[in-house]
């Protein structure tokens, strides 16, 4: 039996920012239904990586493949395949929640009843009904994140890219977010999320990749790995630049 086609493949991608390599020779693969946690300290290159995966930023070199197709040659794939929630959900302050969802749906190619159904489904799932006529400019940070997530999920993407999605969320909202992530993964969506919260990774992800100074320093499954072992590996990499895969594997 042949191996399933990866939803996302990063092949030695490199990106410079402000004259220094923000991401250097990164290679990763993500299959459908997998939840990959991208860990790293501030400036490790997580957001740059996710912006490239989402199509908002072009890599200097290397290849990004979505469902086996070169993303640079087929940028239109972003429209249907990817849902992206950047670090601070960017919204148009003069539009309402409902208008945001409609606009994102249309930009992603949804029309007519398909758009109306997707709109209704996501509003119910993320409990945005009471906010639908509210302007985005007056939403709280948590509500903004919810709307950003709704926009990212509206078109049922195969790949969900979440950049620090739990930022500014209260514990109840974090629990709800984890539930959404688990639901999406169960439905076959490949998910890549960046965070610097170790608890977020152990609670929501089944694989972890640790970036340090733009390079991949660790990539492995989280099956059986406890929080302490992950924490130790993360700190080894973050403080000394080298991690111990043995500790994680033993755990």
């Amino acid at each position, binding site marked *: 039996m042949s191996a399933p086609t990866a939803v996302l493949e990063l092949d030695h991608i490199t990106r410079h920012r402000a004259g220094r390599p923000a991401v250097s020779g990164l290679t990763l693969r993500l299959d459908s239904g997998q939840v990959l946690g991208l860990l790293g300290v501030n400036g490790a290159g997580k957001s740059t990586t996710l912006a490239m995966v*989402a199509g*908002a930023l*072009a890599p200097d070199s290397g290849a990004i493949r979505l469902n086996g197709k070169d993303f640079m040659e087929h940028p239109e794939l972003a429209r249907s395949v990817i849902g992206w929630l950047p670090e601070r959900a960017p919204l148009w302050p003069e539009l309402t929640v409902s208008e945001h969802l409609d606009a994102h749906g249309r930009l992603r190619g949804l029309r007519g009843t398909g758009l109306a159904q997707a709109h209704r489904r996501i509003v119910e799932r993320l409990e945005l009904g009471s906010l639908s006529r509210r302007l985005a400019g007056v939403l709280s940070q948590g509500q903004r994140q919810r709307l950003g997530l709704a926009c990212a999920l509206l078109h049922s993407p195969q790949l969900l890219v979440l950049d620090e999605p739990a930022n500014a969320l209260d514990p109840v909202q974090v629990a709800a977010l984890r539930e959404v992530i688990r639901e999406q993964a169960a439905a076959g969506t490949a998910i890549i999320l960046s965070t610097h919260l170790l608890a977020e990774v152990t609670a929501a992800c089944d694989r972890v990749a640790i970036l340090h100074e733009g390079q991949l320093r660790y990539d492995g499954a989280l099956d059986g790995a406890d929080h302490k072992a992950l924490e130790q590996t993360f700190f080894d990499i973050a403080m000394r630049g080298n991690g111990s895969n043995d500790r994680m594997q033993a755990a």
Partner: protein
Amino acid sequence: MSVIAVTRLELRRLFVRPLAWVLAALTLGQLAWRFTLLLGGFLAGQIKLAALPGGPGYTDLVGVPMLSSILTGGVLPFGVAELALVIVPLLTMSVIAGERSNGTLPLWFAAGLPASRIVLGKYLALMLWLVLWLALALAMPLSLAHGVTLDWGKLASASLGLLLTLAALAAIGVACSAYASHASIAASVALTLGLAMAGVNLAAQKAGATNGVFNWVALSSHLESMLRGLVSTADVAWFLIVIVVALALATQRLAAEKERG
């Protein structure tokens, strides 16, 4: 289809912001004032004018001067063309620069849209607003069409000239917005460019330079012949060149932004 989605979103954003409504109200109010002054002048002199063989009529004294004061002199109150020099930069300033400062520009890239479609979609939305504005301004002289003899050909030529002027100014404004880091800078540069292009030939004449290049560069010289009822391929081509070059520059800047980050 994606261009239509961009246009639709941009148009929605334009109509829910107070700026567009305030500009429309102020400018149409001012144009109504100009219309009553022009109409008053026409009514006061129409008996004398009727006696002149081939004398100016309603179109020459009210219809065309509503659109621009280039032929009539006396700038105040402004015609549509003079108002456009100010309001188009205000409308276009945040089209791209505003997205940049709001942090929403990457959303457009992440929607898989090429820079050309983003620019074109936004430009079309602005043009729809400006066409509506021009139509409302034209409705004033046209409201008396049943009682006067209109020179439809001359009015159509002048309207085409105004439409092309608005299209050129909007394209320049979009390009300035694509290059500027802040909306206010985009508005200032677009206003300066618009004023320079409108008056470069007059300034050159006053300085004693009679070089044909200044006339060719000047927007007003191309608009003037259309206001007189003369539509020439050279004038239309000039406007199209300005529009295409400005939109191409905006597209190139936006595409480079995705590359550079």
